[in-house]
């Protein structure tokens, strides 16, 4: 081959921090024209932040970007789009009330005299794009809200192609697709690359990357741990090792000696035939005091849904939940909390915290009435109790007045745990407890969770990081597509076995 052409895109040393979290820490990425460059990494590794920088939606704190040999600043999404960078996000950014053609040409409609939209021309052009994408059956005049998820994705892609695009970023495009549709997606990607367009492809599914990828960049905790590996020849084991970061030793607290009173005690949480149509199949589950049970599965396997249904935040189609033998009113968070269940939800900031409020106010939120007589708060007692809980978890800074927003991810999670510690619950549901928490702080969180269990709490843990589930839980349930496919003692499983179970049945295997 001729000497290697200059890369289409070079990002170097990209750094981006959010309050409390360093999302990107000097990431490099290099993309050639006409290649499929795969971006791999676990949740929270920094993939989303990186593509938002690339799309001009986030401004990096540091680092440089070179586009076709010239340094550029992607100061806004429009700038990125003008250069020919298009992004297809996981959450599609379509306007549901507008037609397919209107969505495709949103912001750059073909017009007469600058403002009269030439509807027919837009529809013809949209139809041509849809044909190119292998979906001539989508009517450009239809409202986007009426289309299936797969077709909406095609529309999103047509919108990207309606610009003179040189690079398309696809964020987990196959997540919402059936196997046939994935095949079509791959045909589209091949068509694009043969036209010289570069594709940055994000997926959790390794076998997809083998099929269409040229090179792979692996992100882990905001750093690129491998840049530009050959997609077809790098052994899976190496890739998994880089993603899961085996080199970073997870420090898990020791489990209590086997034969501890666990087997003899009554279960504190009993779930029988719990079921939510379209989300997960009937689940049976027992949790005893002192026990940590892990749910392993991919995004969309129903793990968070199960947790939220147990907690009453979602109403089950069938089945029931009992705490210490007493059935809970279904679909009532208040009943669950009153019975002693606590939840540390997946989206800590969106679902658990009042970010601008103080640590004390966040921690006391679930037990407010305990500090009140006739609705009147005893703020001294509240503060003392909150402080006791946060100190027990060594939350830092040890300042009850600090706004939760200013804490690091790990300490924000501790604030959530302290809330339930203060409330005094018997069952703790943890959804991705270490998301956005850096490695050092994780070990501390693991120790806290184990200690809470040793003190008699029953813990149900959901995590997409398999080593976390295996290292922390006593017993593991593996979920795939809303179904429990395997159940075993954590010590009897290893990471590869779980990954096999979790990914089995994905399109190409």
């Amino acid at each position: 081959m001729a000497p290697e052409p200059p890369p289409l895109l070079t990002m170097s040393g990209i750094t981006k921090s959010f309050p409390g979290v360093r999302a990107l820490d000097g990431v490099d990425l290099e993309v050639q024209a006409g290649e499929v460059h795969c971006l791999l990494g676990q949740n929270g590794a920094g993939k989303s932040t990186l593509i938002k920088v690339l799309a001009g939606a986030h401004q990096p704190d540091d680092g440089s970007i070179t586009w076709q040999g010239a340094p550029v600043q992607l100061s806004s999404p429009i700038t990125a789009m003008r250069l020919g960078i298009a992004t297809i996000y996981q959450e599609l950014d379509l306007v549901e009330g507008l037609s397919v053609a209107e969505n495709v040409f949103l912001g750059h409609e073909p017009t007469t005299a600058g403002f009269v939209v030439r509807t027919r021309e837009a529809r013809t052009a949209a139809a041509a794009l849809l044909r190119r994408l292998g979906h001539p059956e989508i009517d450009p005049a239809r409202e986007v809200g009426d289309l299936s998820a797969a077709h909406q994705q095609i529309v999103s892609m047509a919108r990207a192609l309606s610009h003179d695009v040189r690079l398309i970023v696809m964020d987990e495009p196959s997540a919402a697709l059936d196997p046939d549709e994935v095949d079509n997606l791959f045909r589209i990607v091949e068509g694009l690359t043969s036209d010289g367009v570069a594709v940055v492809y994000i997926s959790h599914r390794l076998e997809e990357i083998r099929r269409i990828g040229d090179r792979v960049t692996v992100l882990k905790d905001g750093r690129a741990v491998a840049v530009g590996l050959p997609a077809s020849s790098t052994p899976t084991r190496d890739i998994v090792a880089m993603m899961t970061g085996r080199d970073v030793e997870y420090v898990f607290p020791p489990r209590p000696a086997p034969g501890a009173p666990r087997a003899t005690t009554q279960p504190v949480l009993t779930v029988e035939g719990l079921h939510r149509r379209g989300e997960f199949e009937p689940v049976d589950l027992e949790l005893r005091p002192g026990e940590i049970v892990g749910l392993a599965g991919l995004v969309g396997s129903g793990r968070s849904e199960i947790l939220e249904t147990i907690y009453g935040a979602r109403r089950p189609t069938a089945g029931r939940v009992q705490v210490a033998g007493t059935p809970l009113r279904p679909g009532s968070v208040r009943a669950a909390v009153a019975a002693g269940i606590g939840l540390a939800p997946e989206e800590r900031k969106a679902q658990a915290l009042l970010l601008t409020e103080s640590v004390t106010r966040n921690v006391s939120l679930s037990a407010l009435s305990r500090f009140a007589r006739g609705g009147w708060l005893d703020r001294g007692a509240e503060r003392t109790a909150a402080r006791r809980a946060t100190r027990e978890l060594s939350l830092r800074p040890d300042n009850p007045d600090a706004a939760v927003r200013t804490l690091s991810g790990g300490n924000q999670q501790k604030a959530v745990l302290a809330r339930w510690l203060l409330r005094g619950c018997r069952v703790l549901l943890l959804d991705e407890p270490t998301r956005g928490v850096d490695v050092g702080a994780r070990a501390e969180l693991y120790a806290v969770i184990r200690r809470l269990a040793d003190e008699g709490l029953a813990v149900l843990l959901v995590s997409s990081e398999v080593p976390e589930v295996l290292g922390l839980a006593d017993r593991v349930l593996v979920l795939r597509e809303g179904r429990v496919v395997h159940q075993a003692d954590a010590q009897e499983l290893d990471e590869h076995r779980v990954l096999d179970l979790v990914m089995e049945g994905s399109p190409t295997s």
Partner: protein
Amino acid sequence: MTQPAPSAQHQGPGKGHPSAPAAPPSKQGSGSRALGLRVDVRNLSLLGVLAVLVAVGGITEPDAFLDTGNLQLILTQASVIGVVTVGVTFVIISGGIDLSVGAMVALASVWATTLATQEYGFAGILFTAVVVGLAAGLVNGLLIAYGGMVPFIATLAMLASARGLALQITDGKTQIVTVRSVLDLGLPDSYVLGIPPLVLVFAAVTVAGWLILNRTTFGRRTVAVGGNAEAARLAGIDVRRQRLYLYLLSGLCCGIAAFMLIILSGSGQNTNGNLYELDAIAAAIIGGTLLSGGRGTIIGSVLGVLVFTTITNIFALNNLQSDVQQIAKGAIIVAAVLVQRRTLRGGET
């Protein structure tokens, strides 16, 4: 406000990032401290604006403005809208909005002054005004909390219906109040140490509002619902019931304000409380309450009311037309919200 500096430096991505310079964490810390300060500064700056206004009034119309009677008038005029604003502030802090306050004041004031009601005297008028306010608030609350309606729409519908009902009751006529004990409360004889009773009611509602917001579980839950309704729900708070209570509270304030207006005007009219919703919301906003919820103060809202009322008074004394007043009001709202936006942005990154 008095956070010790060292604690601010503990946070930040220190661990695992030895290369991270010391500057970013401390910058973050100062940002949060500044946010805490700025909220207070904003109240202080409103106080400053008020002081400037008093100075302007004192200089342009030294005799008329600083006259005891005029100061009493300003406070009295502020009282009615002030009580309404306290209720609206709670609703806005919870992330809602109440567009129906003016209409609720009108409805309560005409219902409480019908001939039939007036037969029951002072107690009948007060009772009716409060109950009508509560009932309208209950309807708002039920529609929003349990009917799943957007607050804007539900209270807009209440605005239209309550005004219509008020017109139907009065047939467009002014209902003169003949109950002496009610009318007496508006006369200088009833002033306590030179303070009109209406101003005392306003002060009492302000103090009660402050205590409820800052010292009770109700206030805490209000802030939680407005700051992050999903988090509040998942923490086990009954978000719907809280919302219902909040619109009831707003209705109650309107009932009280209606009674005050009856005392002040000696009558009930279906045009009472016209555009109170805009004045109350504007006062809360310039007082630093976030329209998106989760943050706000009673003091700020009360200062906002006083600023608006004082401006109106000064303009009237200087024989400036209401068009100029309106323009000035608009400019103040814009300036206050621009300050608010800067504060917010400073808090985010």
